[in-house]
């Protein structure tokens, strides 16, 4: 009994292959599909009663690509060229067998055809798509660090020309049916009800079982290879843009360029081999594993509530209270109202509270102007937010989030005022980014219901929410906080209490290392460029300018007061102190920081840095700077694991990439350590510690872990 498809031959001798992978919401490439499709192709080829075939799907989609969990498991088994090719080649070969089976095959694309789905359709001789607005067509493999390895890099350029094909494959763009038809990726668009009949009619009436690229005299449309000036232009410009965008950190885009460049100059059979070899190099790359594991498997799991305590009934916030209508409060109000919640937005004056709602008004206005939102829906969102000043308005809230000034006394005050009115079972959450939750919960009469829900700024753009469990926080409270984040369709991670929790704490090591490098006389351009080339979205000095040096200064002073004798000055402190106290360059908002912000043109590093922090005669290698900036973050994350601030490796990885932009190619801070290798990482940290200071010293715990070869995942 087939598990993935059925094959039925009609009176005209047309075999209808209907994809329907059992136990999956969508059709995906699995080992069983490979086997059963292989048998079907063999039958079409050999059964004289079969004149041709139509491939369609019984599910809403045609086929959505490969099963990423299967890919991730397979990745662990792939360790050399032959195991990689053994994985890469069969599907490629199967699709080639399909298009050379000698009988016409049409794809009846009823819904979304992505990745392997589109590649299957491209291996058919004719493509009919149902006029379905939900359909997405594309080759998005690059987004998981792969290339379309079932002929996608070979057939698409042969079909639509290299420039268009490269754009689609390198960007991983999704097209709708009309766009796919305009690009001549699909031949016919018909109403859904006549899809299969139209495909069958093509087989009966026109059925040509020879692909264009197998016909005599075929030439790649628009030219190919190193002798065609158009193609030379495409590859010359394309390679530079790939280098610019990837900074040589992501191997997939350049592998795609090469597979297309080399593969389109040779017969397709050779091209497919070349493609499989390049796919193999990606299957052997840790970056591929890192991206699949963190960005898809673990992110998807987190969004489905992987960290939610079991046994707590599902909950839903219908009315949310927000204390403080500043930037964070206003942002939280917007995303919550957009998710359908009633929001009581409280501040000390009606004006302030109303100003918080204005933020939502502006955002929905933009969406309306762009046609993403109807005016009616926009109005609904805005009216869900009620600006209030009286705590009584919070009486019906299931959840209240405070986003007031980072001051313990103020926070304690609003906590007490809120708890006086909200139901006994309601959850009280703090959006603090720095103050320990357990301490804040001391102001609460019911600390079991007290939790940290840390949003990132700007709230509507940042997908991560860091949930902080205080000492007294109950499992039920945690579950309800996660339910709320899932209602927002954001990605929750769960961490335990600590100064700066997880994200702020580790991020601080990055900016500190940047200032330390400057203090040592490393050129600021080198620091900033190397950070960006390593994949950080913003250099450490630029990001300090963004958050303002003033704020960093105050946080440091607060920490010093809080810790008393236990305080150890940070290695970057002299720079921060000099910038703030002596040079009065307080950050971007103040018009000047490490950078100048001219009224016109781009920001430029302040020329005065050269005299404030004189450059050392000998500058370090870029690789050394890069290592310091990345290792210090990874090492601090390992300390968070040791201190049980972080208890799940997936949380550490997701938090680092989605929270502060740790480079995605690493898979996150802990995946990065595993990419380097634990022993190598520890050894290198020791070398860095000897050279640059004890902040790089790995703990005995980490050393022991490395010695045992115990990874984090």
């Amino acid at each position, binding site marked *: 009994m087939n598990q993935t498809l059925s094959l039925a031959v009609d009176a005209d001798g047309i075999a209808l292959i209907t994809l329907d992978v059992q136990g999956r919401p969508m059709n995906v490439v699995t080992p069983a599909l490979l086997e059963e499709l292989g048998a079907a192709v063999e039958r079409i080829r050999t059964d004289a009663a079969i004149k041709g075939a139509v491939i369609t799907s019984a599910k809403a989609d045609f086929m959505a690509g490969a099963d990423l969990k299967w890919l991730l498991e397979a990745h662990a088994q792939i360790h050399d060229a032959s195991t990689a090719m053994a994985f890469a080649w069969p599907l490629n070969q199967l699709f080639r067998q399909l298009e050379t089976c000698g009988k016409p095959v049409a794809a009846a694309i009823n819904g979304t055809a992505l990745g392997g789905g589109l590649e299957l359709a491209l291996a058919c001789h004719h493509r009919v798509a149902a006029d379905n607005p939900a359909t997405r067509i594309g080759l998005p493999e690059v987004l998981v660090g792969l290339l379309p390895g079932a002929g996608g890099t070979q057939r698409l350029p042969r079909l639509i020309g290299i420039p268009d094909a490269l754009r689609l494959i390198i960007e991983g763009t999704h097209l709708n049916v009309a766009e796919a038809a305009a690009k001549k990726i699909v031949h016919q668009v018909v109403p859904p009800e006549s899809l299969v009949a139209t495909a069958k009619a093509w087989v009966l009436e026109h059925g040509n079982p020879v692909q264009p690229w197998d016909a005599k005299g075929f030439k790649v449309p628009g030219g190919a290879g*190193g*002798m065609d*000036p158009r*193609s*030379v232009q495409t*590859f*010359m*410009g*394309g*390679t*530079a*843009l*790939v*280098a*610019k*965008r990837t*900074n*040589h950190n992501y191997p997939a885009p*350049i592998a795609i*360029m*090469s597979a297309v*460049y*080399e593969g389109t100059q040779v017969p397709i059979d050779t091209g497919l081999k070349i493609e499989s070899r390049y796919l193999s190099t990606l299957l052997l790359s840790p970056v591929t594993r890192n991206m699949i594991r963190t960005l898809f498997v673990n992110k998807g799991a987190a969004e489905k509530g992987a960290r939610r305590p079991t046994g707590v009934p599902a909950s839903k916030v219908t009315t949310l209270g927000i204390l403080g209508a500043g930037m964070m409060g206003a942002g939280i109000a917007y995303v919550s109202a957009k998710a359908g919640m009633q929001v009581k937005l409280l501040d000390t004056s009606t004006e302030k509270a109303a100003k918080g709602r204005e933020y939502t008004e502006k955002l929905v206005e933009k969406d309306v102007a762009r046609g993403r939102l109807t005016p009616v829906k926009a109005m609904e969102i805005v009216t869900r937010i009620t600006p209030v000043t009286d705590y009584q308005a919070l009486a019906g809230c299931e959840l209240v989030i405070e986003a007031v000034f980072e001051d313990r006394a103020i926070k304690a005050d609003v906590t007490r005022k809120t708890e006086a009115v909200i139901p006994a079972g309601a959850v009280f959450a703090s959006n603090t980014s720095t103050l320990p939750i357990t301490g804040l919960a001391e102001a609460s009469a019911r600390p079991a219901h007290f939790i940290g829900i840390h949003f990132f700024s700007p709230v509507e753009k940042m997908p991560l929410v860091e949930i902080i469990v205080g000492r007294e926080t109950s499992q039920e409270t945690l579950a309800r906080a996660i339910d709320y984040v899932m209602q927002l369709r954001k990605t929750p991670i769960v961490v335990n209490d600590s100064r700066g929790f997880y994200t702020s704490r580790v991020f601080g090591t990055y900016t500190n290392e940047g200032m330390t490098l400057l203090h040592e006389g490393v*050129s*600021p*351009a*080198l620091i*900033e*460029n*190397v950070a960006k*080339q390593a994949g950080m979205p913003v250099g450490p000095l630029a990001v300090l300018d963004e958050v303002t040096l003033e704020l960093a200064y105050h946080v440091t002073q607060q920490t010093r007061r809080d810790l008393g004798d236990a305080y150890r000055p940070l290695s970057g402190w002299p720079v921060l102190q000099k910038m703030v106290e002596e040079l009065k360059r307080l950050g971007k908002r103040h018009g000047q920081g490490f950078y100048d912000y001219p009224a016109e043109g*781009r920001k*430029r*590093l302040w020329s005065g840095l050269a005299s404030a922090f004189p450059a050392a005669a000998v*500058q370090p290698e*870029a690789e050394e*700077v890069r290592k310091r900036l990345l290792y210090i973050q990874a090492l601090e994350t390992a300390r968070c694991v040791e201190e049980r601030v972080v208890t799940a490796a997936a949380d550490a990885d997701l938090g680092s990439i989605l929270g502060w932009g740790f480079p995605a190619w690493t898979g996150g801070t802990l995946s990065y350590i595993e990419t380097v290798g634990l022993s190598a990482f520890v050894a290198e940290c020791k070398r860095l510690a000897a050279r640059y200071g004890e902040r790089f010293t790995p703990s005995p715990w980490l050393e022991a872990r490395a010695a045992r070869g115990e990874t984090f995942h």
Partner: protein
Amino acid sequence: MAEAYIYDCVRTPRGRGRNTGALHEVPPIQLAAQVLAALRERNQLDTSLVDDVVFGCVSPVGEQGAVVPRVAAIIADYDQNVPGKQLNRFCASGLEAVNTAAAQIMAGQSDLTIGGGIESMSRVPMGSDGGAWVSDPAVAYKSYFAPQGIGADLIATMHGFSRRDVDAYACESQRRAAEAWKNGWFQRSIVPVKDILGDVILDRDEHMRPQTTLEELGALKPAFTQMGEDFGFDAVALQRYPGVEQIEHVHTGGNSSGIVDGCGAVLLGTKEIGERLGLKPRARIRAFASIGSEPTIMLTGPAPSARKVLKRAGMNASDIDLFELNEAFASVVLLYMQDMGIPHDRINVNGGAIAMGHPLGATGAMILGTVLDELERRGLGTALINLCVGAGMGTATIIERMN
């Protein structure tokens, strides 16, 4: 080891390298043939004695494909026994051809050779030959390929050469070239190009703009901004030079070498063959050398190649009377002067490619002749000829004038 002597140098004037340029109508093979014919006629050469004709060419495809010097020798009515070969060391091809022709003599395997170069940039545009370095993604990616102009601007940025610095250099190149032409200092080597009826098409360098002012140069738009910023090449270059905050684009059509058509050749031989043929040796080749340098910035090869050739010759920079460094871009020369400690009045004394143009494969042979003429005019002894080269190379030759 035998000595290689220079007996004669000739070059065509350089025509503007576009379809309105004077030499655009002349096929490259005819340019080369006229130059070879001139060498024969000026020296009453028994061409059957020529052991080899070595030519450089940077875009050896189409009309410049298939071994131009051999075919040109046939067209120039050389003896059919004269072989030819073509080589490519990008912008130093013409000098490399002279070096190779000299090497055959120095190795004792030839008595009389011709080294030279050809490039008709108006007919076979730069880049016509493609190349994996540019078009193959795996190659361009691994080698951090960026076009030369990006490297020139990067040199200016790294060494603090301002737009005014590079423009001022360009202005002086124009002034020097104009003065040299006015005074006839190029006359000895110039071979006017003729049409098939024998009428002169071009007898002086066509690319020059002697009236150019610093203000006019300053008004030109930087040529490589778009390539750098929109096509990603600045980012590629900064990946190799992360200590540079951003590249300042200072080079324009006015302070970079001009695109032109032209051909040049040098007659070399042993002392004995000169005596036998009654030719007077004008100079001898003291040494030559090439090096590889960082390919992304691409244009920093001259100084290391100069140091290498000086060492090979057992000389110091101070032993060189005149330097001739191809003016690919103004920043290349400014860096070289700074790096080698050469005052401006000892380098490119009669201007260079910024004023007169750079017919890629021919330039090396041309500027060797230019500087030899000048050594003779000034009664000086030694010159070092040098070019920056694509993909990060440098080629240098030292010549010594014979009294």
